[in-house]
């Protein structure tokens, strides 16, 4: 739709500082009806000058778009590469032998034990892994939805970053005793309970 326009600052502006444009011969149903003030100025230049101006604009715009456009696109692009850094994997399990599968974990660095360095969920086998950035004692806390929580302290020595590739586990700690140790502790507990009873009976007898 084309419409002609003419300056009519006095009519539309009513003393306003800027000149306005009134649309003439426009469709009456269009939002910009006849007589509607348009709040911008149009400079009317000779045809030759307009062509030259357009060419200059294009010449300026194209380099600007080439410089800024692809950069903007790259900011939203994604990529991947295989990291050469060594990761630490920790496995969590219950005293019943079950793994703490798909439970929330948080990793705390030696420098900041308030804000988690990493968080996520353990895998099907109760494992989680993280890539330490510096030596020290890292903490991995796993908690489930039934009030259980495991708090693992993983010492990362400087050799971990220097040597690399050492498959030996860095830390092995079981909160639950196993085997003979378990039976000895159970026997110790029962023994303590009956010794308490015996002590009380003995004290009463005296």
């Amino acid at each position, binding site marked *: 739709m084309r419409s002609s326009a003419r300056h009519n600052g006095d009519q539309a502006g009513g003393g306003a500082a800027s000149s306005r444009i009134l649309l003439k011969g426009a469709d009456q149903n269009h939002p910009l009806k006849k007589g509607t003030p348009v709040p911008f100025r149009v400079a009317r230049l000779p045809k030759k000058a307009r062509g030259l101006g357009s060419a200059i604009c294009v010449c300026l715009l194209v380099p600007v778009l080439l410089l800024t456009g692809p950069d903007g696109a790259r900011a939203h692009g994604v990529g991947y590469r295989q990291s050469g850094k060594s990761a630490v994997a920790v496995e969590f399990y*219950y*005293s*019943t*032998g*079950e793994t703490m599968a798909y439970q929330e974990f948080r990793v705390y660095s030696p420098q900041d034990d308030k804000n988690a360095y990493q968080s996520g969920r353990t895998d099907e086998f109760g494992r989680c892994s993280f890539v330490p950035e510096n030596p020290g004692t890292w903490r991995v806390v796993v*908690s489930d*939805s*039934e*009030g*259980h*929580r*495991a*708090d693992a302290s993983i010492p990362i020595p400087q050799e971990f970053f220097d040597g690399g590739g050492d498959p030996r586990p860095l830390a092995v700690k079981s*909160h*639950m*005793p196993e085997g003979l140790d*378990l039976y000895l*502790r*159970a026997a*110790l*507990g*029962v023994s*303590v*309970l*009956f010794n*308490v*009873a015996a002590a*009380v*009976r003995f004290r*009463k007898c005296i």
Partner: protein
Amino acid sequence: MHISEGFLSPGVLATGWAVTAAGVAWGIKKMDEGEIVRVSMASSVFFLASLVNVRVGPSAAHLSLIGPVGLMLGWASFPAMFTALLLQAVLFQFGGLLVLGANCASMAVPAVLANALFGSFVRGRGEKIAAAASFFAGALAVLTSAGIAGLLLFFSDHGMALTAKTLLAAHLPLSAVEGATALFMTLFLRRAFPDILTGGGRP
């Protein structure tokens, strides 16, 4: 069933310790001199029961025997469970020392309630009624314990409402196992050692 360290707020921990301290004091006061060996035995059973893993569906849980201990000891369940939980925390790292008061309260209160509600039926003449009462005492004690633990978690952090519900739901299948265990235990004790099922009173 054991709540780990770090979940409960200081206020809830203090409440748990207050309830436990009052219960232990009252239990020791009501405990008869001749009961001490029976209390030790029940405490040992409770202590060892946590090592017995029960496979329930896809997951595993350990027995608690809250109901049978309550039926045997009554108020003396408080000192018996407190000692056993203390040993479990030290020797097996179950729960923790700070959270011991809350854990003891969440288990000993249902034990006392089980004895108060079902004790007379379990010690009554009718064997069928005793069997049914034993089953419900064992099953409901576990569910009540899970409910109390869920409430403690909820009052510590309202965002843990889902945790509390999950805890209760997870103990539903275990409650059936606990009920059946309580049933067989009490029926055996009724016939073999009826003096043990006194609920804290004199045999």
